[in-house]
């Protein structure tokens, strides 16, 4: 193979990922020092192309970062006007009125937004301040200094053949060096995973927990549309098979976001999260709303759910993890964007002070202290027991107990101390024979859609002539272990239908990876029973092209 030589560029801070965390950090650095050299690299074809969130935004993060965001035209305009929570039974629904819910579950003062559009707007603000933002550039590697600290990244490598060799069109990309590198890759970041493992950052913390969030944008009958309405449900169709629930947000232009989250600690490997989502839309309450409407877009993304006790150490020499690369989602509120923004701001402030003091390449421990003890820590500590309770006692009981714990926590004391999560989501998967196969109704093509049809509405694409970005540590494991023991769960947990087991008579079963369909949700990297699948970055610009997700 040809020796790769790369051009190098020096920055003060190199930021991976143009999500709310990375962009907030870039903006704050420039606010503090207009001469600070800041670069943001984003694998999506444009900023926002890979952003998928709910989203009901708590503006507390934006308020501190850009206090005049309203005047600056932030696409944050649809105030939440109505907030409903339902426990669904198969036929009917029980409405839990708002008042018994603890105060922090109320969405008063929040906004229904497209985080994709919010990120596009934040990117404009950042560019206006002089930040260099390069979308369509995957960051595929970290670069280490001789002392073992992180000194930069490799971005923008293109044109490898499927076997890894260099094609005629090969572009080696560039090395971008910084005094500090920020990883704002979002949930289950591929480089963040490497840093966590290399520097053993999870030691002494609970394992991170995840959910799989799937989402569709619908254009519905204007007569049924109530701008500003927020609805959450739990219960049917998941029942006892898995934890999770749905969200339905009415944004502007007669559009609604319909989303469904399945906690990935489910035990029954026959569970098919995507089909649970499709089935959910046939509940009379949802079907009535969507009838006559049109599905405009589809996507999926994992969501971090471990909360306070699962946050790993977030700094190592030369590098800091931001936002959901740490895991800062407040689970009962299903909100992480405000904390992502606050973490970006805190990291920027720590880096600014360090650079002023002549430091570089060391640990920004001031950042970590601010996250744990400041606004983010407070937000997450209050609700730290909700998720373990869900896992332990099931839904209804934990709503009561968890609700109580949140009530008391609001006043600064918890009845329960801090509960543990236990196993990783991968290890939670149990042997197929111990569980019932679940029969799912066939999608009707109107309210529900087969997986491949829906994936086309993520507008995803990957250059075919490149190595598969979904790699197997042991290529024989899917067929030798996962298929016989777990019934081949990859064929079901992937919301984009990337994995297939092909079983033909007289031939050994084969495991196929249709990587072109991947929507970068990271579920396979999380849920594969043997943690045998490693998600790496494909060429920049590949992956979904989400509109206003």
């Amino acid at each position, binding site marked *: 193979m040809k020796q790769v030589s790369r051009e190098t560029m020096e920055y003060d801070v190199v930021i991976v990922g143009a999500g709310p965390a990375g962009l907030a950090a870039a903006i704050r650095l420039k606010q503090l020092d207009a001469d600070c050299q800041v670069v943001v690299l984003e694998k999506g*074809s444009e900023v926002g192309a890979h952003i998928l969130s709910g989203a009901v935004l708590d503006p507390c993060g934006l308020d501190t970062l850009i206090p005049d965001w309203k005047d600056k035209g932030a696409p944050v305009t649809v105030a939440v006007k109505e907030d409903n929570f339902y426990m669904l039974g198969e036929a009917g629904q029980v409405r839990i009125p708002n008042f018994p819910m603890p105060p922090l579950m109320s969405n008063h003062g929040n906004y229904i937004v497209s985080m994709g559009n919010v990120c596009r707007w934040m990117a404009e603000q950042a560019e206006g301040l002089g930040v260099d933002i390069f979308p369509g550039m995957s960051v595929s590697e970290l670069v280490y200094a001789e002392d073992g600290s992180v000194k930069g990244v490799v971005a923008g490598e293109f044109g490898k053949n499927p076997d890894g060799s260099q094609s005629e069109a090969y*572009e080696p990309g*560039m090395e971008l060096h910084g005094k500090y590198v920020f990883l704002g890759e979002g949930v289950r970041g591929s480089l963040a995973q490497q840093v966590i493992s290399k520097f053993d950052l999870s030691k002494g913390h609970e394992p991170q927990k995840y959910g799989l969030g799937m989402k569709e944008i619908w*254009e519905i009958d204007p007569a049924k549309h109530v701008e500003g309405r927020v609805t959450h449900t739990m219960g049917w169709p998941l029942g006892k098979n898995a934890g999770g629930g749905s969200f339905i947000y009415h944004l502007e232009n007669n559009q609604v976001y319909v989303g469904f989250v399945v906690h990935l600690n489910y035990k029954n490997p026959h569970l098919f999260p995507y089909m649970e989502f499709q089935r959910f839309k046939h509940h009379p309450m949802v079907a009535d709303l969507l009838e006559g409407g049109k599905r*405009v877009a589809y996507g999926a993304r994992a969501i971090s759910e471990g909360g306070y006790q699962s946050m790993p150490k977030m700094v190592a020499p030369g590098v800091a993890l931001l936002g959901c690369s740490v895991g800062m989602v407040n689970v009962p509120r299903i909100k992480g964007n405000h904390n992502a923004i606050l973490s970006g701001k805190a990291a920027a402030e720590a880096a600014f002070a360090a650079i002023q003091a002549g430091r570089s390449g060391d640990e920004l421990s001031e950042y970590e202290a601010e996250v744990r003890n400041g606004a983010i820590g407070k937000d997450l500590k209050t609700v730290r027991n909700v998720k373990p309770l869900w896992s332990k006692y099931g839904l209804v009981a934990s709503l009561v107990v968890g609700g109580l714990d949140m009530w008391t926590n609001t006043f600064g004391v918890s009845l329960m101390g801090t509960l543990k999560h236990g196993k990783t989501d991968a290890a939670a998967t149990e042997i197929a024979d111990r569980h019932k196969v679940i029969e799912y109704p066939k999608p009707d*093509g109107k309210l529900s859609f087969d997986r491949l049809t829906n994936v086309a509405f993520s507008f995803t694409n990957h250059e075919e002539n490149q190595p598969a970005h979904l790699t197997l540590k042991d290529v024989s494991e899917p067929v030798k272990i996962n298929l016989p023991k777990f019934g081949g769960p990859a064929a079901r947990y992937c919301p984009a239908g990337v994995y297939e087991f092909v079983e033909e008579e007289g031939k050994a079963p084969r495991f196929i990876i249709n990587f072109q369909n991947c929507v970068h949700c990271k579920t396979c990297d999380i849920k594969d029973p043997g943690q045998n699948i490693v998600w790496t970055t494909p060429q920049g610009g590949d992956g979904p*092209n989400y*509109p206003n997700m």
Partner: protein
Amino acid sequence: MKVLVPVKRVIDYNVKVRVKADGSGVDLANVKMSMNPFDEISVEQAIRLKEAGQVDEIVVVSIGVKQAQETLRTALAMGADRAILVVATDDLHNDIEPLAVAKILKAIVDEEKPGLVLTGKQAIDNDMNATGQMLSALLGWSQATFASEVEIAGDKAKVSREVDGGMQTIEVTMPTVITVDLRLNEPRYASLPNIMKAKKKQMDEKTPANYGVDVTNRLEIVKTVEPAERAAGIKVASVDELVAKLKEAGAV
């Protein structure tokens, strides 16, 4: 020789287009836009001609909304030398018609005096397949459309064209307008170092008034409809069943 390459910002080819509720056209709000794929091919061809020493300057032009500057930056990052942005509208749903575009391009040709104009054979948004031809008529230049091979020698260009059922090779006299087809070349990646350098390349911003062209639309779009949805497929168990089904459907 200088070469002029017009590049259009269009809806990205990965996006499934959706007609606006009132049928007036395709909904472009929140939609990913990119350089028209045929225009990437013409930019690539211009760069190859420059690398071969036959061209010394590549000027790219885009006419439309201000955001078309991203499209021009991509062309500059691929290897074009200089860009002209003609901001003709601020409404992203207003597609400037081929005749107006051709008139502006003619005015730019008069100013810049290129020896060659390379356009895409069509834009994948409205499939007009007209701009290059109109420009050639306005200029009184020769034209070679649907090029899948281009060879320039002295004041002649030899162009192979993809036509129904085969290939045709023609020779035209320079200066000329060539519209390029899909198989002419494989466009290169805009590399990160080149994208950085492209930020420093010259981009002039103009308006149609600078060229004395009226860009008011003359065509009226009566209706836009989406193709009928495809019926769900079925799985067949054997070749015999497949053949039977095809016969049933009258396909064989």
